[in-house]
């Protein structure tokens, strides 16, 4: 009996400790951001930094002596906002109509295919999108652009395509959540299918659609690698669709490898500004969705509309009626749906067609041994590095994440202050863009382990990044386990630990496993957190975690950027896509299969 008691105590403390680790991670990141950025803000001056439009850092600048470089990021703030708006105009609009198409106008058979294509493509690494931009989009734009095609348009298109899956899948969920009765009510009044959809169902899903757009904005704001590859990255305003400009994330990537003292501070400060934008978007989103909930709950008469407002609405309503707006909407939805499916397939198809022959024809590429100074490229070291990184980062993140989730769902009393802090910490972690993790990892872990980048530092960095996903999806699957099972176990005299490990976790296993597989996919596809924590050069196959190395995604970034080994780059991209898609498919399959097993083999 004492034995059981001891076990219970140990379990409880371990789960609590995991939750505390999550808080420590957040505190560490924020402490780092503050400690590193405040001196820079002070030295440069906040206004000078935010609104100065000359960025020409001097890497010899130090905090003791007067500055000789200029540190103004306003061009990049404008660039970031412009690129995000561009992405929203392209990806947001197309995504919205695609979701409408998927839910209401798509033939049943096509729907399943299209939906899973879109879901799978959400996992495609951003370097692959960037690479596609480099090899396909830029040459295409260069045909009529005054330059080589880099600039705002290319960036917006790539970002737009990247946020498509996010926007589509979330909008779709909220459209499908609209009660069927709304649609039926409209049709029963004589509305056509199209009218019912655009006049009744879509407005009812407005808050969910807004939320999906906001998430898309968040993704566009934090995106780094794809943008770096197509934006050109000169610190200038995007004054036309085709001129080289720079976004905030790119600023960090471009310079953190060789930054001097003040410059480094300024880069961290850039990260702080970026985070500020992301939180701003989330706050606005919170306000918007709260307002949507409130206005729908409030009785109509409390919403005052001025007479002018009514007139304007009538005017546009009339135009819309005359133009038969819903039918235009239907056409747009069908076009958008086809475009999304084809565009995403095209990205993958193009890379496959170009890459697969090189992959098959060149055995050295995948299984070769690295030769120093050799002219041939092998990605075998990158494959080993990737596997080592996946293994170590999951070994760190999965136990902490799962245990935190167990703490939150099984032990914590709801509304407890500590619980709220842990949840807040998880939310904050999930909002931090990957490049900020990279910066954090470079300045803390790398320095801690003697100043040279290593797989260990990279894995530690990315494992913090994985925590929110693992905690959240584990918690979701723990929540879905019926309380009656817990009661059944406890009523038999089983303790809490036994109940958790023998009854609750096995029932939640499918969700947890698929979260783990998706996390693997994430490690494989990330590159921004690794560039300066783990090294970015393909060299000899690593032998231990203290060696440095490039993962496949980082290797692709290098190969694409150097431009000397473009065929090898295609082949690397194929390997990356196959890996990520396989992991995503496996995740879906595991979830489906285990769920089937759990619901029993009815005879």
């Amino acid at each position, binding site marked *: *009996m004492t034995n059981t008691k001891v076990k219970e105590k140990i379990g409880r403390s371990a789960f609590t400790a995991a939750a505390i680790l999550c808080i420590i991670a957040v505190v560490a990141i924020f402490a780092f951001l503050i400690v590193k950025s405040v001196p820079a803000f002070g030295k440069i001056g906040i206004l000078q930094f935010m609104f100065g439009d000359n960025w020409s850092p001097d890497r010899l600048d130090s905090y003791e002596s007067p500055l000789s470089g200029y540190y103004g990021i306003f061009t990049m703030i404008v660039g970031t906002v412009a690129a995000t708006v561009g992405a929203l105009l392209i990806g947001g609009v197309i995504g919205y109509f695609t979701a409408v198409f998927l839910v209401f106008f798509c033939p049943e058979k096509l729907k399943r295919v299209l939906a899973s294509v879109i879901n799978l493509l959400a996992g495609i690494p951003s370097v692959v999108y960037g690479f596609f931009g480099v090899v396909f989009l830029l040459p295409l734009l260069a045909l009529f652009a005054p330059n080589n095609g880099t600039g705002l348009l290319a960036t917006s298109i790539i970002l737009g395509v990247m946020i498509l899956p996010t926007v589509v899948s979330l909008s779709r969920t909220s459209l499908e959540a609209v009660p069927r009765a709304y649609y039926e009510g409209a049709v029963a009044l004589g509305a056509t299918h199209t009218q019912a959809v655009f006049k009744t169902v879509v407005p009812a899903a407005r808050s969910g659609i807004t939320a999906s757009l906001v998430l898309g904005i968040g993704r566009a704001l934090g995106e780094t690698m794809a943008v770096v590859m197509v934006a050109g990255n000169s610190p200038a305003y995007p004054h036309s669709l085709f001129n080289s400009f720079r976004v905030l994330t790119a600023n960090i990537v471009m310079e953190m490898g060789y930054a001097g003292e003040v410059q480094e501070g300024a880069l961290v400060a850039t990260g702080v500004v970026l985070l500020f934008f992301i939180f701003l978007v989330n706050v606005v989103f919170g306000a918007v969705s709260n307002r949507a909930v409130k206005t729908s709950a409030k009785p109509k008469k409390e919403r005052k509309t001025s007479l002018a407002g009514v007139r304007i609405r009538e005017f546009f309503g009339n135009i819309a009626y005359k133009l038969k707006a819903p039918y235009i909407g239907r056409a747009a939805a069908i076009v958008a749906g086809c475009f999304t499916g084809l565009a995403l397939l095209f990205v993958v198809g193009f890379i496959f067609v170009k890459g697969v022959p090189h992959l098959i024809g060149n055995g050295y590429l995948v299984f070769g041994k690295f030769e120093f100074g050799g002219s041939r490229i092998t990605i075998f070291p990158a494959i080993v590095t990737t596997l080592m990184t996946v293994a170590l980062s999951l070994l760190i993140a999965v136990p902490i994440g799962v245990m935190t989730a167990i703490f939150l769902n099984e032990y914590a009393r*709801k509304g407890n202050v500590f619980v709220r802090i842990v949840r807040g910490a998880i939310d904050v972690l999930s909002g931090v863009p990957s490049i900020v993790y990279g910066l954090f990892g470079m300045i803390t872990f790398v320095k801690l382990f003697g100043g040279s980048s290593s797989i260990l530092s990279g894995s530690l960095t990315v494992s913090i990044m994985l925590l929110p996903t693992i905690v959240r999806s584990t918690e979701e699957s723990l929540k879905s386990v019926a309380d*009656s099972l817990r009661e*059944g*176990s406890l009523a038999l*005299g*089983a303790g809490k630990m036994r109940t958790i490990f023998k009854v609750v976790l096995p029932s939640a296993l499918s969700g947890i496993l698929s979260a783990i597989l998706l996390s693997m996919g994430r490690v494989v596809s990330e590159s921004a957190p690794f560039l300066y924590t783990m090294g970015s050069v393909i060299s000899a196959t690593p032998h231990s975690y203290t060696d440095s190395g490039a993962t496949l995604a980082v290797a692709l970034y290098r190969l694409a950027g150097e431009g000397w080994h473009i065929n090898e780059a295609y082949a690397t991209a194929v390997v990356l896509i196959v890996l990520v898609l396989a992991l995503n498919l496996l995740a879906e399959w595991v979830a489906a299969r285990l769920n089937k097993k*759990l619901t*029993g083999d009815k005879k």
Partner: protein
Amino acid sequence: MKKVKEELPFGQTISVKGANLWYGDFHALKNIDIEIPERAVTAFIGPSGCGKSTFLKCFNRMNDLVAGCKITGKFMIGDVDIYGKTDVNELRKNVGMVFQKPNPFPMSVYENIAYGPRTFGIRKREQLDRIVEESLRGAAMWDELKDRLGKSALGLSGGQQQRLCIARALAVKPKIILMDEPTSALDPISTGKIEELCDELKTSTTIVIVTHNMQQATRISDKTGFFLLGELVEYGDTEDIFSDPKDERTERYITGRFG
């Protein structure tokens, strides 16, 4: 867990004095005294929300799981004060429970029944085999299930699942079994089977059953308690309660005038 546990002297009678229970500010049970005899079926009846299930869950301390629940009064099982220095897991081993909705674990039939014994340190295969067979026989299911012990328990019908849950409770050899509306989610035939089972089980076990169904109470119980708004209005031999209720509220309830 290897050493054999010291048996606490849990008896088979339940004796409650001055029980009060609050959920937050809500006073759910008011000053209840009751003596439940051993090896008999005692039924709790009353309208929804009257506190009968809540009271039942006090006997194996399942109310401990509810946040904001406060209990006062003396709850004795045999000679053990169950809210004193009792190991709650040991208590629940001795006071089994069957829930309103069948809740088999998502495991095989065998694993479901072996779960309890394993919790208390029984690991030997032959011993577990024996317990599984005994428990299934005890729940009159052995012949139905002996060929599908390895199949998922979730593939059974609702009635079978509920009887499996009874077998699962029997596997730890409880002295008392609490049943919280065990047949309310079942069809009449399955209900009949469970009622027969209660009749057999009471030769060795004390059974306390909460039911919405007054016919069920008359069919299977020796004693009946009528609950209303958190009070135990009347308690006595089932025959007396249904033929000659002392309290006007009891009479109005059993004649179907409210509830």
